[in-house]
């Protein structure tokens, strides 16, 4: 019995020292990786930040943004992002989403009454806003993303927004479509991932156009 206990104490002591050793090793690893990232590819390592023509940082090409006014209504001159559940506790209820310090989805199941109501209403509202029939509103337009920070929309959702944005900005639909194509990424090798349009980069480019 005494033997077992002393062996146990020994393995705890060894275990403790091992935890400390591996902790030191992983700290060194983290700082080495950070150093490599900062020296070798600082733009990517620092979060792929975007700057406008004046050189001001206006966000990140990877992190989605809201293009709404303080009441949460769509700003008509911008392509609209997907609904977002990433909400900022310090902003008011109407003006929520794309808070990139609290990433989150809605986590609502498909039988949830509120979700069904919201999706139904949103679908109608978008159809009205874009002047299309409700069945032409794609799934991503009415569904919140997983992170709440999705910077992208489907090409189908971009397509139904072209007419409104062009009209609002006094541009031709072709001009806007050309820009949309520029910020569209296809499937890798024709089948990896899904085709997307980066809304943040697209809207920034629209603003720089004039």
């Amino acid at each position, binding site marked *: 019995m005494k033997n077992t206990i002393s062996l146990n104490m020994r*393995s705890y002591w060894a*275990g403790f020292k091992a935890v400390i050793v591996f902790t030191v090793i992983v700290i060194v690893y983290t700082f080495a990786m950070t150093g490599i990232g900062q020296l070798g590819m600082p733009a990517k390592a620092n979060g792929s930040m975007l700057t406008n023509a004046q050189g001001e940082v206006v966000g990140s090409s990877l992190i989605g943004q809201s293009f709404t006014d303080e009441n949460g209504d769509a700003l008509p001159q911008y392509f609209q992002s997907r609904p977002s559940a990433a909400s900022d506790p310090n902003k008011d209820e109407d003006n929520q989403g794309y808070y*990139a*310090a609290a990433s989150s989805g809605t*986590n609502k199941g498909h039988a*949830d009454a509120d979700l069904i109501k919201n999706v139904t209403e949103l679908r109608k509202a978008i159809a009205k806003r874009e002047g299309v029939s409700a069945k032409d509103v794609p799934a991503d337009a009415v569904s919140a993303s997983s992170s709440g920070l999705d910077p992208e929309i489907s090409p189908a959702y971009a397509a139904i927004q072209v007419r409104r944005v062009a009209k609002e900005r006094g541009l031709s639909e072709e001009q806007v479509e050309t820009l949309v194509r520029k910020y569209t990424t296809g499937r890798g090798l024709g089948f990896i991932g*899904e085709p997307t349009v980066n809304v943040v980069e697209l809207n920034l480019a629209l603003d720089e156009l004039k």
Partner: protein
Amino acid sequence: MVYLFAIMAFALIAIILAAIYKPLGDYMFNVFTADKDLFFEKWIYKVVGVDSRKGQTWKAYLRGVLGFSLMSVLVLYLLQRVQHWLPFSLGFPNVEGPLAFNTAASFVTNTNWQSYSPDVTLGYTVQFAGLAVQNFVSAAVGIAVAIALVRGFAWRKSETIGNFWVDLTRCTMRILMPISIVMGIILIALGVAQNLAGFVDVNTVAGDTQRIMQGPVASQEVIKELGTNGGGFFNANSSHPYENPNMWTNLIEIVLMLAIPVALTRTFGRMVGDIRQGYALLGAMVILFGVSFLAVVTAESFSDDPITALTGGSMEGKETRFGIVWSGLFGTTSTSTSTGAVNSMHDSYTALGGMMYMLNMMLGEVSPGGVGAGLYGILVMAVVAVFIAGLMVGRTPEYLGKKIGPREMKMASLYFLVMPITVVLGVSLSFALPFARQSIFDTSLNNDGNHGFSEVVYAFTSAANNNGSAFAGLTADTPWLDTALGLAVLIGRFLPIALVLALAGSLAKQDKVPVTAGTMRTDNGLFVVLLVFVIFLISALTFFPTLALGPLAEGLVA
């Protein structure tokens, strides 16, 4: 059309894994059978104070596992309790006791269940000096135990099953660390963040304000997938664009999760001197994985619940860049291994899609399972399959030349009972104990009815299997769930490990029985089918009533 993309996605992953199967499997074989210690390993053994030349009995090996893991829980708990005073704390306060216990237990057991939301709870130091450390070593513990079991089959008349400290150190330093460095750098190059900036405030394109959390993400992301850990740097885990910015990082992360569990079947085959035995296990894994993946894609594309029907495809809780196919492939990978990382919110899946993820875990995570845990899990199932087949033909069951006697069967049966009992007990108590029920209904549930029940079932299934994914609407940071799930991860990890090591000990003692014409073959298609059947039978019978109350009912009502 969606099936075409699904099959091409599956084929691509299969081709990549086939290409790394032999080199990685053989490399790991060399690591665990090499005689020489490297110079820095000698230094580690000296500091820790262990003799790397000495073999350990199964009991000594287990004492090593438990001693190391208990100290890990303690250190990680303390680190969270003092995080406010550590550098890079981002101003977050010290983590509360129950939550710190839950998180420590969960990361040491390779579960990485997250009762906390990282974005609003943890500073960088706890992440990289606490969580990331466990991402490495908890994975190494799992692999070490699996290797010890394989030695039980491979060695004859041996009292020892290897040395825990050597297996732990070599796995961390020679396998996990080099792959993490190389793949981590590639992830940074593809856009995964790696910095020590805190929160960055910007004025957005439309002139609003936005706060963006940064961090040393890539270094943690890579080992999170490679070690099948799954604890996200951010709350949204691998759906957060800084963890998983595009289709290429998504592909790499899926491959990282599968690489070691799959290649370990080769290591196993090499160690027992017959690579075909490894192919048989791999065959069963591939069948279970493939069927499950196609079922998820079908459910997400063609369910007729109100949301899917209304929008024409289930995109709630999915990222545009991944869509249904690549979210489904990631989710199937994550729940079939013990990773539990998510690139889409499983809570918002269709009833039957979400059920497939639960089922992957309920099978005991053997398709292909977590690093190490998957291999020892499926080896126990193979022992059970051999035993059942032996009963049917009236012959003494043998596997890999070792007799499966009463002692071995006791260990195997206890092994596969631990997880279901933990799950069913945890779920029942959550609804039966008045104070637990109260806290579940008042605080925890995010959905009503059957789907709410599924959230609790998913939580305990995930905890007892050391998976860590969630129906994440569930608020698990309550005294009841923090404690109950914390205990479930500890039971679900260490009881099976103790049984596996005991099994390894009793197998290693035996001599090998010679192969005769009467020996049942365990390297052919028939055995693969039998193995799949046994795995499915054991879990389906156990969990059918539970699933009927949750996702099946929800799916049928809709």
